[in-house]
């Protein structure tokens, strides 16, 4: 069983957390802090297994993590999971499947910013890989196919009514320097209805 999946960056800022066992919010943050503390002080050329984060603890559990550029991917698993298997799951190593690779495909080229702005999307992808603490699917093509089908469904549901929102968010995302960063939303909101002379 997988007890928790944590993704955080080099400064310990959480980018995605997924607990398969209940912890209260403050406990979750403490676990993240402690895990970050444990993981961050390790060199890149030491092994990817860690025992005894006391919070997530128990002798049956260990932390399996990988460090990519600015991100740490940490899995907390018990002895029923294969250590190398989980590492493979995090990144293709010797088996053919992955989690990060999946993200890669879905986001073209994954970088920390993608995770920051699309936490929900990452969750949806993760849900196709791990469910309730157990590995659901390891076939990358299958995962990608399912995620895409669901996204397509979301788009088709959005239809016309979602179009303006999409347009606005596209504009917002253009991130042009001359546009003030914080548009006063309140003002425009009032103006828009007054423009339409019905």
């Amino acid at each position, binding site marked *: *069983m997988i007890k928790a999946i944590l993704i955080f960056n080099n400064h310990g800022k*959480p980018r*995605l*957390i997924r607990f*398969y066992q*209940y912890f*209260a*919010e403050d406990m979750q943050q403490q676990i993240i802090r402690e895990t970050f503390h444990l993981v961050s002080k390790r*060199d890149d050329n*030491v*092994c*990817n*297994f860690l*025992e*005894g984060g*006391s919070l997530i603890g128990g002798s049956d559990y260990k932390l399996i993590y990988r460090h990519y550029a600015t991100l740490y991917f940490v899995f907390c698993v018990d002895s*029923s999971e*294969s*250590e*190398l*298997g989980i*590492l493979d799951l995090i990144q293709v*190593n*010797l*088996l053919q499947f992955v989690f990060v690779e999946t993200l890669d495909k879905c986001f073209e080229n994954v970088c920390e910013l993608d995770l920051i*702005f699309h*936490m*929900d999307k990452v*969750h*949806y992808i993760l*849900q196709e890989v791990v*469910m*309730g*603490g*157990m*590995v*659901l*699917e*390891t*076939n990358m093509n*299958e995962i990608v196919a*399912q995620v895409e*089908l*669901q996204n397509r*469904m*979301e788009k088709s*549901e959005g239809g016309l*009514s*979602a179009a*303006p*929102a999409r*347009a*606005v*968010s596209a504009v917002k995302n253009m991130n042009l320097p001359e546009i003030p*960063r*914080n548009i006063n*939303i309140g003002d425009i909101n009032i103006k*828009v*209805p007054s423009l339409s002379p*019905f």
Partner: protein
Amino acid sequence: MALKIVKGSIDRMFDKNLQDLVRGIRNHKEDEAKYISTCIDEIKQELKQDNIAVKANAVCKLTYLQMLGYDVSWAAFNIVEVMSSSKFTYKRIGYLAASQCFHEGTDVIMLTTNQIRKDLSSPNQYDTGVALTGLSCFVTPDLARDLANDIMTLMSHTKPYIRKKAVLIMYKVFLKYPESLRPAFPRLKEKLEDPDPGVQSAAVNVICELARRNPKNYLSLAPLFFKLMTSSTNNWVLIKIIKLFGALTPLEPRLGKKLIEPLTNLIHSTSAMSLLYECVNTVIAVLISLSSGMPNHSASIQLCVQKLRILIEDSDQNLKYLGLLAMSKILKTHPKSVQSHKDLILQCLDDKDESIRLRALDLLYGMVSKKNLMEIVKKLMLHVDKAEGTTYRDELLTKIIDICSQSNFQYITNFEWYISILVELTRLEGTRHGHLIASQMLDVAIRVKAIRGFAVAQMATLLDNAHLLTGNTQRNGICEVLYAAAWICGEFSEHLEDPMQTLEAMLRPKVATLPGHIQAVYVQNAAKLFATVLRKHDGETESQAAQETSQLLIDRLPLFVQSANLEVQERASCILQLVKYIQKLQQKNVEVAEEVTALFAGELNPVAPKAQKKVPIPEGLDLDAWINEPPSGSESEDEKPKAVFAKEEPKHSRSRHTEVDEKELARRREVRKQEQASNPFYIKASPSSQKVYDAPGVEHIPVVQIDLSVPLKVPGMPMSDQYLKLEEERRQKEKAERKKKEKKKKREKRGKERKADSGPESEEDITPAHQVDIVTEEMPENALPSDDDDKDPNDPHKALDIDLDKYVPHCRHLQFIHVLHIVMCRNEFFSKTEIYDFRRIQKKMLCSIETRLNQLSWFPVQKSSKHKKKKQKKEKEEKEKKKKKRHHHHHQHHGDAGGEDSVQNGTVEEEEPLPVSQSHSVSLKREVKVYDIQGNHQDESKVVVSVIFENKSDSFLKAMEFNVLDSLNSKLQRPEGAGAHDSLTVPFQLPPGVSNEARFVFSVQSIVMPQKLKGTLTFIVKSDESSTHEKLDFKLHFTCTSYLITTPCYSDAYAKLLESGDLKGSSLRLEGINMPFHHLLARICFHHHFSVVERIDSCASMYSRSIQGHHVCLLVKTSDQTVSIDAKCDEPSLLGNVLDEIKQTFSKC
């Protein structure tokens, strides 16, 4: 309308979405908390709006904030709203939020049951998928119970995407609702051979998780898994299966033998390191399980060890780590083969990677010998000094102690060395393991008599330097050591050089800052030391020293008398009075030493930790019976200190003298207390006694110069290192002496074989430095040799320890209606005379099973051909008689420990053993068959009966035909063109030991009455030499409950239904129901397919619907052991029958 939508969406496009929120937070780095709190206010506003899109957007943002540590449980209801949106986009957001923040304590979770059920049966597979994923994270026992059946149905969904999720989530359901395991298991097993690899993998996953905790119940699946292992190409599945085999082999060594070959093949063929590693691991497990029986596997062990050595030598740290991990498994059974790689392991101890060092530490345990123990420990001590981080250092500490103390200090040759190691370990800052060191000190001092003198001297120094240990508040873990030190000094005070000094050290005011239990030991042992001092000065008339000691105690003890800790206070006041009394005697020049020493006379022996447990309880002793009737009220508080006293100080064998004194003291204390109580001016911490506290304090505050730049060294402590040298020298000397002796011998035995004495010393050659007398732990005379099984009673997996092969009569099936058993097997040969006996046995067996089955299952009638017809007839009659009786009595017979029991669903109809074939007399084991009947709302006149056929015989069964004699009301659905009485062919054959499931559809016209259908199963039994035609008769019992389907109902709809006046009422009273109300409800829900609409205290309304749409409403009330059920239904006879069935369910408990 269209305008409203457009306007809504235009409004919405200026709401902050998730990306805006994230961007905003990033732009407000300085005042993030403030920014987020304004965002939360906005979200609260958004949640108040009617537009579901706005709500979903808000919930999405909340999910993000939850990740940052904000509690969003206040929005739980809004999350449920979003979950119930009809649009997938929003539903998905809702479920995601729910899975992140719902848990068992979330109260709105109970509102979700119907929504989830609706989503599960949604035609859109992604709605179902999202619901399953969400549910897997927040499933509660209630949800599991209510939805288990729906999820089970999904396990046979047409889409593999749903199937695999449904299969996987079943594990969570089992954990929360263990009763569901048995009925779901056959289907789960079926999924192991699902055509879709994903579903197969999920099934393997679930069964592996189940089997890991309770492997013995899954041994029967081994052949199936073996087949999968040799056929599957999915590494993930392979790894799981191989891991599972690792858990199974210890239980079945024959399996292990079979495994070795394919596993070795895999090791050679696979390129996947993960698979290779798991194979090696399982081979190790196999070899370990075989090692007891067959010692001839050393070659395989060597192979594994060599493979692991390659892993350990690999530059990849991960492989190194795993190699060490696997190595430690071999170590347990084959320490010799690991020992040859000592060099490698010691090398890993210096690895820069902590995880690897920890693993290497584990292995060290098996590496030590008498010869190298000191050397290895020295190395570890160096690591202790260097170690950063308390985890690793604590680990080192425990390992050092483990290594040294293993198998009764087997490898320790010099206990002085060990004591000094322990003393050195006390220098560790902030360790949690003070108690461990303390218990070792006690252990050694008590058990190794020769060391006591040395130990006491060391402990005295420790006590003298106690300030070093307690000086820093962070180091309080280590002060446990003082507990041991004080006790050792007190108990073995005769070895002390200067007891007076130690006594003084133990009574320093600083002691009052120690934890209570340590102070208590201090006080008690101060008294022991006092006795020793007196004894020393015994005989000297008017001894100044003795009187000074008394005065010291009288001066210092009041400090402890004021202690807030009861234990300390009680002991101190006791001893203070005693000393005062002694002082008086001293002043009169009375010899007291003898009598005071008698207080602490007698030697303590170590007692094995489980000694008490192992004493068998004598016959006729009931430990739970009251000795005296319990007094009503507060007895515990007064007794508490006493109990603690007895526990901390197990010296029960004091001389009578003591008792008198203590009684006297107790009396006096009582008087004093009463005086104090009646004196209004008495204030507990009086200023005068405060002075007493201060005065000696000032004098005795030690002026300590601690140079913190230098590692702390306890002054006067011998360093353990020097022992290493000493030991080396000693051994050299011994060796030399031995050589001399041998030379002498040689001279004597000239011409005889020469012994090679230049080689390394063997273990036996090393003699201990001291004559060590290790006292073994005492056990009671009649102790039982058994070991206790220390299973955690809170382990949720314990509930899943269900033997799935065994048929349990009170099978808790979900809404399955019948479970029926056809047992028939025909392989053991008996002579004719034996038959009769066997039949009687079988009959008895069947009867007893039947009684317990309680109408749950039926047995087939095996129409036996020619033989013994008369006898059988007789038997039949007898049986019928018995049966009648049974029907009267079986309610009482039904012994169900679990409390929850079976429904009156299927009925045991007929049984008759023994098919007797012409030439042989054949005995019966039989064949098991389980079936369930399910109706569905879509088709109001159809019921599906699924039957599991299992062949328990050794013969091949084929051409099975299933037929039921139709009644006017119920008909077996036959394919078009078939005649009304034709049999249905069962679409499979059954090799021996195989089971399979077939489903038959029945059409039912009226459902208001329960009914029974007679049926027959014909089949051909094919054995090696012959094939015969056989027949089994059975009856199917359709109860009225079986036509009910759990249907959710909202309370307002329910109220309307009751108001409508279409329903007719009836009621039922049950007496003597002795179970909690929620159990009662659960039972009705479970066995009779109702759902709870509303529950208020001990009153609940329940609802169910029949397949033909009859509403059945129950109002259940309970007040001490009486349950009244008022029921309403639009069909009175259906209601009557259902109530009868409910009554029967409860009459069984």
